[in-house]
């Protein structure tokens, strides 16, 4: 190995080491100062650091496009400590990305040609904060976990979210279902994207639930701002602690109601609490949790608004609760509870 090559390999090693140190949790001010000293010691250092950052970013991208069986990599004996319902899905994000007309793009590309080179390095910057992940909670198995910034997420059953934390922001996307966020304080803003909405927040606890016709955003602590995720980011509403906003998917029309915090967080403890909610949404919530499904047979029954507080797994109580509603009747079939609008009462009872 030539002398020059040995030296350059040595700088690579140092750059990788600094890069890895940055991501250590107990990274001190003194270390930051030493890192700065190293960085400005030579342009070679800086160039190498950028190159390493770029590779780090590209590794994340590359691995996201590969099917990697992490459990197999780690080996069977260690997997028991892992949550069994974390499914890492490869997601392809390259295809649908750019919608610029091709001609316009080409011209801009030319303009950006030189910038591209350094930029492709500094792209490493966005990607090198390689905190991204995809989380899925299966049917009947809600879960709670912590994101790298300390934000705690309660993910309801049959729900999925992905996160991507960069240098400049924390972005979470709720693909389906329901999740509560106890947001850790961080200088980077956090935004949850769901159903064409953006819920922005700094240091609060809130819940986002994608229901059939609307998104429901409930704040149990602090305050969030909801903006439209398209175009100029029109503000939809500000929601404070103790409030729930229901935003229509189609026109983003909104209604804000007061809700107590216990209602909002009840599902973390496996309770289903509903205040003046349509039966079809209540049914969805039960069905996330149980193998026995609740089927609502007609639209009138589905639209019936109910208030109650039940254990998510206690189907007997659920059935009793539904039977107690004067306009509903239920019957049990295999693996299902059917509920429908009560048919006309028998003539004999009527006459009395």
């Amino acid at each position, binding site marked *: 190995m030539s002398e020059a090559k040995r030296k*350059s*390999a040595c700088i*690579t*090693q140092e*750059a*990788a080491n600094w*890069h*890895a*140190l940055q*991501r*250590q*949790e107990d990274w001190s001010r003194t270390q*930051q*100062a030493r890192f*700065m000293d190293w*960085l*400005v010691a030579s*342009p070679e250092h800086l160039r*190498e*650091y950028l*190159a390493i950052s770029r*590779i*780090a970013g590209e*590794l994340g991208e*590359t*691995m996201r496009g*590969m099917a*990697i069986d*992490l459990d197999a*990599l*780690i*080996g069977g004996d*260690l997997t028991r*400590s892992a949550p069994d319902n974390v499914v890492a899905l490869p997601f392809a994000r*390259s295809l649908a*990305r*750019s919608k610029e007309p091709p001609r*316009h793009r080409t011209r*801009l*590309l030319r*303009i*950006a*040609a*030189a*910038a*591209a*080179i*350094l*930029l*492709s390095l*500094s*792209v490493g910057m*966005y*990607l090198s904060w*390689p905190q*991204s*992940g995809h989380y899925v909670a299966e049917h009947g198995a809600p879960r709670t976990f912590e994101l*790298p910034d300390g934000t705690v997420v309660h993910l309801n059953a049959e729900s999925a979210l992905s*996160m991507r934390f960069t*240098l400049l922001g924390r972005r979470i996307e709720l693909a389906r279902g329901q999740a509560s966020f106890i947001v850790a304080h961080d200088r980077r803003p956090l935004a949850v994207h769901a159903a064409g909405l953006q819920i922005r927040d700094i240091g609060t606890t809130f819940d986002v639930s994608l229901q059939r016709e609307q998104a429901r955003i409930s704040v149990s602590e602090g305050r969030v701002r909801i903006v439209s995720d398209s175009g100029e980011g029109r503000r939809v509403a500000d929601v404070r602690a103790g409030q729930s906003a229901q935003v229509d998917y189609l026109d983003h029309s909104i209604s804000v109601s007061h809700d107590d915090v216990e209602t909002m967080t009840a599902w973390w403890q496996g309770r289903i609490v509903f205040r003046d909610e349509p039966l079809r949404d209540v049914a969805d919530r039960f069905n996330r949790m149980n193998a026995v499904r609740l089927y609502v047979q007609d639209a009138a029954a589905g639209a019936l608004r109910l208030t109650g507080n039940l254990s998510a797994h206690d189907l007997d109580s659920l059935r009793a609760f539904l039977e107690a509603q004067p306009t509903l009747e239920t019957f049990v079939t295999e693996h299902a509870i059917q509920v429908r609008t009560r048919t006309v009462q028998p003539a004999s009872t009527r006459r009395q």
Partner: protein
Amino acid sequence: MLHGFFVRRGANHEAEDLVQETYLRLLRAHQRQAGAIANPEAYLFTVALNLAREQAVRRRRSPLPIEELENLTALLATEESVEDVAERAQRRQHLQALLGSLPERTRAVLVMQYRDGLSYKQIAERLNISPHMVKKHVVRGLSVCRRALVDAAEGE
């Protein structure tokens, strides 16, 4: 490897200028306010990105209309559009092959770190090793990939 990349792009000088200029700005900031930069990495990336943007704008003789400037910024913000797609695909393939050549443990660490965004502590717990060892795997994985890409470019 970077050299090869630049030559193919025919923009060697500009790129080198950008690295040098970034370096000088960082150095100046460092001398002016030593120790005051709380997060050198974030600072470095901000400087580099700003310079790249400035240069992109400067290369146009006439001032850009505002609307186009916004487009440009948007364009610069997405890595897809600024980088040659073929180049990217090639690098990605190379990285895939390199990943396969790494020891399983190192590979597992890289997956958890860069794909899943787990902290060293979380990775350490999962693998039953110390966070220090996790960091070592990260350093090794990155170094191997970087050196292999350098060698590949020099061999061309």
